């Protein structure tokens, strides 16, 4: 299964003073089981792009094919697509509304018209995946901490059993602990459930650690696409787009400038640590 985006263009408020081209001829293919990172500066079109994928907005021009079928062809198709492609918006905790955590997560599967048993099964497994224990099931979602709320909201999307999961800035506004919990849950989903995950973020550290492929968006267009190693080797270009490489890359750059032979493709803290330890050993310095 794959998502094929062909020449997608989206213009907000066409023919008025508020006219804005959010997406400009975007073509992209996302394959099954991929962990894709979508990065870009505020206003680069990331959010608009992912809202198209789930059929919440329609393209001005172009098309999106899911397994060869246009997802915007009719309402029925769009509904089916919404089940297959789960989308957790930015600050998803603002969509919580039910009296208990359990009921809120059950909202999605109930809308799908599943049986009681199936709903229960989905809800329990979704909450388990994001690490919410049974003791919280009957609590009000508004009584939870920020990180818990967000995980419950993401579980609300997972409970619909999507094949593809899209997360828009899932770690925005969370403390480091909340962030790590969310990212661990997402990583788990990709690894153990084999879900195709699209992670929208502007935190280079998050993206560097997790994804297989990075797509960089700039002014509504795809500026770069490749493995983290490939993308992060273009530091200057990223900076021109108002983005930055992971902080570790800057440490590496500085070390290289001082004459240490650090390869170009090191971009996570653990990689650099290994590299430095190895270099120290070679020089005969014991730990």
């Amino acid at each position: 299964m794959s998502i094929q985006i062909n020449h997608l263009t989206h213009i907000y408020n066409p023919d008025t003073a508020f006219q804005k081209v959010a997406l400009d001829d975007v073509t992209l293919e996302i394959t099954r089981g991929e962990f894709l990172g979508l990065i870009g500066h505020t206003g680069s079109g990331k959010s608009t792009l992912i809202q198209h994928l789930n059929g919440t907005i329609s393209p001005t021009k172009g098309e999106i094919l899911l397994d060869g079928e246009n997802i915007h062809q009719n309402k029925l198709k769009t509904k089916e697509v919404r089940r297959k492609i789960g989308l957790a918006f930015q600050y998803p905790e603002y969509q919580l509304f039910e009296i208990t955590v359990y009921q809120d997560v059950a909202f999605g599967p109930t809308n799908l018209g599943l049986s009681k048993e199936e709903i229960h099964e989905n809800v329990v497994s979704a909450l388990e995946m994001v690490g919410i224990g049974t003791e919280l099931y009957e609590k009000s979602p508004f009584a939870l901490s920020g990180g818990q709320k967000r995980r419950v909201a993401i579980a609300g999307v997972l409970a619909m059993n999507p094949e593809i999961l899209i997360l828009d800035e899932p770690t925005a506004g969370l403390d480091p602990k909340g962030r790590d919990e969310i990212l661990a849950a997402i990583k788990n989903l990709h690894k153990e459930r084999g879900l195709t995950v699209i992670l929208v973020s502007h935190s280079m550290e998050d993206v560097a650690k997790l994804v297989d492929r990075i797509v960089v968006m700039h002014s509504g267009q795809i500026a770069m696409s490749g493995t983290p190693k490939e993308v992060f080797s273009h530091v200057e270009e990223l900076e021109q787009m108002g983005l930055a490489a992971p902080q570790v890359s800057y440490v590496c750059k500085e070390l290289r400038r001082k004459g240490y032979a650090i390869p170009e493709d090191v971009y996570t803290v653990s990689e650099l640590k290994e590299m430095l330890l190895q270099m120290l050993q070679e020089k005969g310095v014991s730990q």
Partner: protein
Amino acid sequence: MIRDITIGQFYPVDSLVHKMDARAKLALTMMYIITLFFIKSFVGYGFVLLVLCAIIKLSHVPLKFMLKGIRSIMVIIVFTALINLFLTKGEHVLWEFGILHLTIEGIVLATQMCVRLVMLIMGSSVLTLTTTPIQLTDAIEALLRPLKKIGVPAHEIAMMMTIALRFIPTLLDETDKIMKAQQARGADFETGNLMQRAKSLIPILVPLFISAFRRAEELANAMEARCYHGDENRTRMNQMHMKQMDWIAVCLCVIYTGVIVALRFLPVV
């Protein structure tokens, strides 16, 4: 769909109407609304329509954008029309069924009511589309100031309105976002009977209220942190000045009102 509501939305282009003093604009709009209710004949409506079109042309706001505002109150217009159409008593009865009757007088009245409502909305849209909410409330405060002597809290009223207007687009955007998020979870707002549709609003309204309260609290804190304490000794960054253009507009408005009054009382038309 939800973004079509244009009330309180400023349309940023440059025009004579945009440059006018907000106080003059507000007073003129009020005059315009009063005269609308003063008209009896279709000639009168024709005249107002002409004036309105001229102003819209001057304002450089696309007509399409103004008509959007009408779409959102279409229900009220249709409702008013139907009531007037079928419940007005008159001499020339065309059709009758129980308490419903269609008369020539009814048709005339219904048409007039609709025209009046449409013009009312269009006229006030011109004001809100060409005046930023801040200017608008400053104008309200200025016009209410004389009433302060009898204890009307002019500044507080203006501040409340500023805040309310400021948050209309924010809350609309928020509603849009929440709707999309719930749709992503399979919520359906478009089908089902009245009961189901009413129920389907809960997942939107609960988060919306929560976010409105959260925003209110944040704003209150932010205002307090900046030592806001109301009207006393407050100065303004933007002082309002009546320019020559504004006085011309006021004169034109006087002439316009004269014509309306004349059309009403002169037997010729």
